[in-house]
């Protein structure tokens, strides 16, 4: 089962909290991480299979370039191999752990690229952002058509969606967003909080 096979429902990954995984307990992601921390290569392979697609999609959304994205994907999972013992279940699910690490790494790479190119990512409106992700822009990579399906972000009021996108996918700090949008910092902070609270209610996974 790969994430790409879920064309029918882009929320199919999500199970309500408490749904038992259809696997033995030693294959549950938390157990896999414990095994990886012991150096279990097979557990790592399964963990990769479960979450690499999720990580790559996010990395590529941030970096756009397929080659750079694959490099970052490899770095992320290599660090997971080395640091599986640091996973703390109180802080969230293994899936969130992977996604947040992938996002941090991708944003670090994006910032390094920006510094090198001395360019500042131009503010884009929603149409430009989405069109650059359409199939055909990156012919070498199979982009799942899910991207054109309604995103949970669409459910956010525009001001909140803007803040979440600028922060999460472009790596801007709240101060930078406030500058970019010409809004007070406090407004940006409130929109970030409201936006994530709404996403939490829509997507409802922990």
């Amino acid at each position, binding site marked *: 089962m790969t*994430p790409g096979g879920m064309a029918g429902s882009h929320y199919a990954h999500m199970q309500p909290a408490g749904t038992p995984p259809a696997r033995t307990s030693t294959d549950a992601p938390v157990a896999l991480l414990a095994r990886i921390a012991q150096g279990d*290569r097979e557990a790592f392979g399964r963990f990769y299979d479960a979450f690499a697609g999720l990580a*790559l999609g996010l990395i590529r959304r941030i970096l756009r370039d397929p080659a750079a994205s694959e490099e970052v994907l490899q770095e992320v*999972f290599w660090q997971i191999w080395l640091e599986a013992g640091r996973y703390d279940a109180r802080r969230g699910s293994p899936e969130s752990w992977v996604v947040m690490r992938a996002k941090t790494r991708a944003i670090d790479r994006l910032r390094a690229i920006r510094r090198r190119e001395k360019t500042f990512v131009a503010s884009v409106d929603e149409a430009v952002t989405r069109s650059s992700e359409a199939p055909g822009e990156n012919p070498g990579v*199979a982009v799942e058509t899910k991207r054109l399906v309604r995103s949970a972000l669409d459910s956010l009021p525009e001001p909140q969606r803007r803040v979440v996108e600028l922060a999460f996918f472009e790596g801007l700090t709240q101060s930078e967003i406030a500058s970019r949008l010409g809004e007070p910092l406090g407004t940006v*902070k409130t929109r*970030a909080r409201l936006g994530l609270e709404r996403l939490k209610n829509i997507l409802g996974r922990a």
Partner: protein
Amino acid sequence: MNRDEIAELAAGYALGALDAEDRARFEALLAAGDAEATAALRDFEGALTGLAAETAETPPPAVKAALMARIDAQGGSREAVVQTLSSVKPDRSRRSAWTLVLSGAMAAGIAAIAVGLVVSAAYDRRLSQLAQEAAALKQEAERQQSVIALLRDPATQVVALSGLEPAPGAKARMLWHATAGGLLVAQGLPPAPEGKAYELWAIAGKGAPQPAGVFTVDAKGVGGLRVAPIEAAGAVDTFAVTLEPAAGVPAPTGAMYLAGKL
């Protein structure tokens, strides 16, 4: 700090968008075990994970193959990393020099550093752990509560101290509250010589340095200090650490190891 203010920090943190002081404050809250902060962060990261699921794609097989080959090159297990590194070919001799001087228990941690963790990320995590350890040093529950209260108070400021010439790699963070005092957490300091200790000074503007307590560091170079409020004419805005006789002195005499300003 009320629930909305914590949620605001948690949202910014989950998005990776907090500015430096807010990030330091929130990480300290997490390290101190604040339940609301932890829960809010978990929920927001979960929401963003759900968002990421919308764009999941199939990775090319080459990435997994490269990872598995890299694991196999290690000998297939992380415990083998140390043995592998210590028997490496000459072009990796820099890494083998690290492992040769270490016992097996420490080598795994150093091996992780040797394979290229971003130093600042590791330091930030460690410093967050330090805040937790410094709090844990005090056994009384009420003292732990007062640390959390300090962290949750929006009037608490975070001051970063940098290492000076005697210990350029040393760093510290001071959580400072004008009326409640504060918490200092330091890392990277050499052990104080026999009969000496590190002393913290609080300075208000151009006023004389006020003694704020003495501390020592453990074998890992880590030390913490709970600081009582300072009677000073004017607001304290600068902190410094010098090496002094172990009982502390009323005015600084020794070399300055750390300093920082609001």
